């Protein structure tokens, strides 16, 4: 009897979609790259907006209705740049780099540099999020909702990358099973 969840759990493995995990030795379900790419696309969109807003201050000569939620105060503050590079641009670069790393073909690559490099990069993004949240709360006393959207997307992408990295581990257990059955 066909598994009702077969489509959603269909793995992405070497050789293409639909092959079994045991053939690959490592695999992630098809939804995982799709989820990752969706998050990356949203992150690219918001980070692009914030980068444009950072440089285009002429469009922002107005006050929002509330005090704490104040994007301009955040995006034009001295803390909005690190070594002269706008944080918004760093966010854009982050998602741009993550885009190829979350493609289905990238999840099929078993090379440790790709697998753990992607994880380390996602972890760096989360570390940056914590730093920026701290800066917003304690240095600037203002929160930018667009920045918060990027933070949420970064954490969600981190979750996807962690899950994918675990799922794509080499199938040692299968080898052990083979040994026991033999």
């Amino acid at each position: 009897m066909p598994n009702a969840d077969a489509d959603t759990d269909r793995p992405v493995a070497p050789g293409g979609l639909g092959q079994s995990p045991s053939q690959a030795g490592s695999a992630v379900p098809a939804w995982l790259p799709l989820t990752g790419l969706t998050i990356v696309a949203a992150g690219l969109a918001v980070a692009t907006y914030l980068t444009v807003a950072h440089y285009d201050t002429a469009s922002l000569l107005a006050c929002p209705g509330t005090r704490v939620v104040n994007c301009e105060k955040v995006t034009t503050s001295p803390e909005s740049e690190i070594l002269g590079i706008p944080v918004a641009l760093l966010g854009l670069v982050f998602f741009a780099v993550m885009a190829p790393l979350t493609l289905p073909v990238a999840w099929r690559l078993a090379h440790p540099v790709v697998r753990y490099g992607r994880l380390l990069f996602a972890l760096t993004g989360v570390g940056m999020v914590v730093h920026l949240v701290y800066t917003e709360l304690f240095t600037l006393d203002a929160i930018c909702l667009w920045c918060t959207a990027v933070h949420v997307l970064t954490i969600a992408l981190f979750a996807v990358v962690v899950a994918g990295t675990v799922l794509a581990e080499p199938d040692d257990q299968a080898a052990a099973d083979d040994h026991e059955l033999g």
Partner: protein
Amino acid sequence: MSSKARPTGTAAQRQARVAAMRAAQTRKARKARQRRAWWISGVAVALVVVVIGVLVAVKVSSGRDTPAAVASGPASAAVVQGVTGVPAATLAKIGAGSAQKLPTPISAPALTADGKPRVLYIGAEYCPYCAAERWPMVVALSRFGTWSQLQATSSSASDVFPRTPTLSFHGSAYASDLVSFTGVEETTNIASGNGYTPLDTPSAADSALLARYDAPPYLDASSAGAIPFVDLGGKYMISGASYSPQVLAGRTREQVAATLTDPNSPIATAIDGTANAITAAICELTNQKPTTVCNERTITQLQSGINAQR
């Protein structure tokens, strides 16, 4: 007797059983791996959320370190004299100056009061962009009427462009035979909770104007409802400041007022230039009265520029 089950059946049947067992083991291992993936990623995200939650909790429990607000009060005689008495020759020489934008034409019913076209301003004392826009508004309206009890204040000490020197329409009065003026300062510059202490409440009709015209298609959706908002007789509107408050940084109100007569001053080109643009729009409302103001070549040129935006 061996504890191991004796293989039965043909070799093909045995291979099929082994294959089935392997498949079952693979499915089991796969499910275990998925559970482990969910668990590890869940814990990782939970750790991040906890760290951020702790930061927020510490922030909320410690409160804000709010810099002292700058007190508001009557403007000094020097400020009143400077801002209401900018010579016509200076204004004519500056023209559009360094104003970054002109009033935007809108399609709306005429806004009037007491049989006169009405100018509505909605802003707040904390807002640095409102602080910037009030100067040219006072300069422009001074050409059509008389200010009294002008108030002085500064923008929030904890926002961008902190303590931008400015005037306040709260408590100020304006009289004119040509135009009516309503100035609404929604809050003070004194922090309270997540905002500032309330000051003036716009009427329902004025709030509706802000909601209707301080919005697309006249500006980006992301800027909708932003202040300052100025409705010029239902014919034009201004959303946001027409120049950067940075121009006023580090100056006192007296210094700002004193430089309005210097056409070479960046402050004068910004404030007087914006005032000329507002004057041009108001002249459209008053049927080009007074003629001494509205027939000025600078004003007519600006009117052409404003109406060309339609």
